[in-house]
């Protein structure tokens, strides 16, 4: 017996018996309370809530069958911390420390709802008793996130009890490697990291490559700002990723795998380490897995904080202990990758989909989505949106449904302006294209891309030139500097954009940006460089009027670029309280008691302090 209370599994049959054994240990009536400890909830004190529930369970004594679980991201981060009570799927939101005792007494012991903590639909005012009644979850279809929020990511037994590793058992007992690849081919799975390359084709090329050993890599270097899907999977259900990698390794014929995790995600590293440790203990990793001839090991590497390492060849250079510079890909990595050996790299979410495809069949998976984009996709829906969080939707759903039905629209009565997808390689999609279907090809047609799944909503207060500048600055900082175009063209684009946002734009600047974009697309070495102009080009395509306003009228329509708008005090709204007058560092505001205050535009430095401080929102941007 080991720490897990279970000895190493010597055969496939032993693994297959395990879920039943595990379930028999707990009566069907057993209650459990799931506390989301994902990043959004953890920031709001969920870890403490989990500790309090654990204490409450301990104090309740052994005669009551209750279990407290810390679980991965549940998705609706906006309403965190989230607590789920089972059975009954009771969903409590914005739970605070004093609520713990009440939930425990009323709901867990007493079986009554705590009305105050239920989710209330903002448009109908109706309370939701269970998860399924919440519009945010209704439209979603969860595959990669299926077990997030249900299982304790630190316990392999929890995953196995839910049917985890049964796909591995199936593969090892019933399928040849070629059959595994065919199943994934039937599923039509495409890479979730951004490129959308058919997974089965990659696997087959790697399997057929002659050299050995072969390596498999899981890309967890989730570098796109505004994206945290992979983080949620690695932290919420690390075993699904490991199981996917194991199946892929079996299909390809590899004995060594790597998981490359972003440096900014220390918890992901911890969760994966624990998971690998436990899988090894049970004999699901290591030599002769489940008594078969298949052996496989996984090592975790932490990234060094370089965006470019999300690119496959740069990631491999990093794994070899070198600076992460991409190389030209005329020789594919499936033939010569890590240490010049055949290497197959897939993204976290791609791997997490694999066990489901094996268990439920490629046909089932291919039944979801559109003609060329199958299955579901996880998005981090964030920005100026009511229900920020993590969503998983079938491919082909419209942007409008994601933003309005799931996301609840733009808050504070503001107008929707654009949604940014695809990270720094993607683009901004305006309101007129909100009915577009979300799939790999449709988003590319709109000048953006699927990317890894960041979906950032922008409202009328967001200046699109400034957004383009943000991404260009990001890419300029993160350019590895190896190829001249990326290094120099981005610097020039940044220089032009900076001038435009300062009111020093000139006629012809937009055309010059276009020329640089053509240069980048045609001559940059790696995919990150080739797509680096997308944020600029998509904003020019849809928001040319904003560029013109900056350049010709020296005006920022979103009133975000300092110097391209003025502050004025609305005499009707001003209560002459004197707060702005006292806080103005330039002494530019004059006024007396009961007399509306006035800003002297000649003295004003446009610092915006009066705008921030005014309690009556009487200071306006004009």
């Amino acid at each position: 017996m080991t720490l897990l209370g279970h000895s190493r599994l010597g055969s496939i049959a032993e693994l297959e018996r395990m879920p039943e054994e595990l379930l028999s240990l707990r009566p069907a009536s057993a209650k459990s309370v799931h506390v989301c400890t994902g990043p959004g909830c953890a920031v709001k004190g969920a870890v403490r809530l989990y500790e309090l529930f654990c204490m409450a369970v301990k104090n309740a004594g052994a005669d009551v069958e209750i279990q407290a679980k810390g679980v991965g991201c549940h998705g609706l981060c906006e309403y965190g911390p989230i607590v789920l009570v089972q059975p009954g799927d009771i969903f409590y939101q914005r739970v605070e420390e004093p609520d713990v005792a009440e939930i425990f007494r009323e709901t867990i012991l007493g079986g009554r709802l705590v009305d105050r903590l239920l989710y209330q639909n903002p448009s109908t005012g109706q309370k939701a008793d269970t998860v399924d009644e919440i519009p945010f979850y209704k439209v979603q279809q969860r595959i990669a996130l299926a077990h997030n929020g249900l299982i304790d990511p630190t316990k392999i037994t929890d995953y196995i009890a839910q049917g985890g590793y049964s796909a591995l058992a199936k593969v090892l007992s019933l399928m040849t490697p070629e059959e595994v690849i065919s199943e994934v081919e039937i599923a039509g799975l495409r890479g979730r990291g951004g490129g959308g390359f058919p997974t089965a084709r990659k696997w087959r090329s790697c399997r057929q490559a002659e050299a050995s050993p072969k390596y498999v890599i899981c890309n967890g270097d989730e570098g796109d700002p505004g994206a945290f899907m992979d983080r949620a999977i690695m932290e919420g259900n690390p075993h699904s990723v490991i199981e996917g990698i194991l199946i892929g390794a079996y299909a390809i014929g590899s004995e060594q795998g790597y998981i490359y995790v972003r440096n900014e995600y220390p918890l992901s590293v911890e969760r994966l380490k624990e998971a690998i440790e436990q899988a090894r203990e049970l004999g699901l990793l290591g030599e002769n897995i489940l008594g078969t001839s298949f052996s496989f090991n996984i090592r975790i590497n932490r990234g060094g904080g370089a965006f470019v390492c999300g690119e496959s060849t740069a990631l491999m250079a990093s794994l070899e202990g070198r600076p992460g510079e991409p190389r030209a890909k005329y020789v594919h990595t499936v033939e010569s990758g890590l240490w010049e050996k055949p290497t197959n790299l897939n993204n976290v979410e791609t791997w997490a989909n694999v066990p489901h495809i094996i268990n439920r069949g490629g046909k089932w998976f291919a039944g979801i989505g559109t003609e060329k984009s199958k299955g579901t996709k996880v998005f981090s829906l964030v920005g100026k949106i009511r229900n920020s969080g993590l969503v998983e939707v079938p491919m082909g759903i419209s942007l409008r449904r994601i933003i309005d039905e799931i996301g609840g629209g733009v808050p504070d009565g503001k107008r929707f302006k654009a949604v940014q997808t695809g990270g720094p390689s993607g683009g901004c999609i305006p309101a007129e294209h909100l009915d577009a279907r979300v799939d790999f090809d449709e988003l590319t047609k709109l000048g953006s891309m699927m990317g890894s799944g960041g979906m950032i909503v922008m409202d009328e207060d967001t200046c699109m030139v400034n957004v383009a500048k943000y991404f260009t600055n990001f890419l300029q900082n993160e350019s590895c500097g190896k190829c001249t175009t990326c290094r120099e063209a981005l610097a020039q684009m940044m220089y032009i954009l900076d001038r435009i946002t300062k009111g020093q734009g000139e006629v012809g600047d937009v055309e010059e940006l276009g020329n640089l974009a053509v240069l980048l697309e045609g001559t940059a070495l790696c995919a990150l460089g080739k797509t680096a102009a997308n944020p600029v080009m998509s904003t020019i395509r849809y928001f040319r009027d904003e560029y013109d306003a900056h350049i010709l009228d020296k005006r920022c329509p979103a009133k975000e670029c300092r110097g391209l708008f003025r502050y004025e005090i609305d005499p009707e709204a001003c209560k002459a309280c004197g707060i702005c007058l006292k806080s103005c560092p330039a002494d530019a505001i004059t006024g007396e008691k009961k007399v509306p205050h006035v800003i002297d535009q000649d003295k004003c430095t446009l610092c915006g302090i009066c705008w921030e401080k005014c309690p009556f929102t009487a200071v306006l941007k004009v």
Partner: protein
Amino acid sequence: MADEDKLIEQIISRYDGDAGMLIPMMQDLQSECGYLPPDHLRSLAKQLEVPLSRLFAVATFYASFRLAPKGAHDVTLCMGTVCFLKGAGAISEAICKEFRVEPGGTTRDRLFTFQAVNCIGACAVAPVMLVDGKYYDGVTPAAALEILYGLAKDKTTVEKE
């Protein structure tokens, strides 16, 4: 044997002397020392039989490596897209101006090292700031300064070697 040689030997043995694991070794070194001291780097290069220039190439390429000691506290500001949309730029400006520090730099009194990073994946609660691993959500420029002034007053603040 000098102290640095012993530590380096220990770190190298964790990875069976595999020079391909250079980055994890340097990460271990940084977590032990807080930064990459020159003597340790020299020792690492010598023991691994890798040119020192390659260690510097790696150390300067990856944003997470530091060649100078850090301050008593770690302050990390997320500059991801969402944090940026919700005003992280102004927070960064306020911190830089108030404490006369640059992103990536350390305050003159070595109170804290200020880092602006790309995205820490907590977008739902943006803008986010991390102080010694503790998350602060929905931060404003004023709130950020208040948190950092709290560090200055904190009596437990002991300057690290």
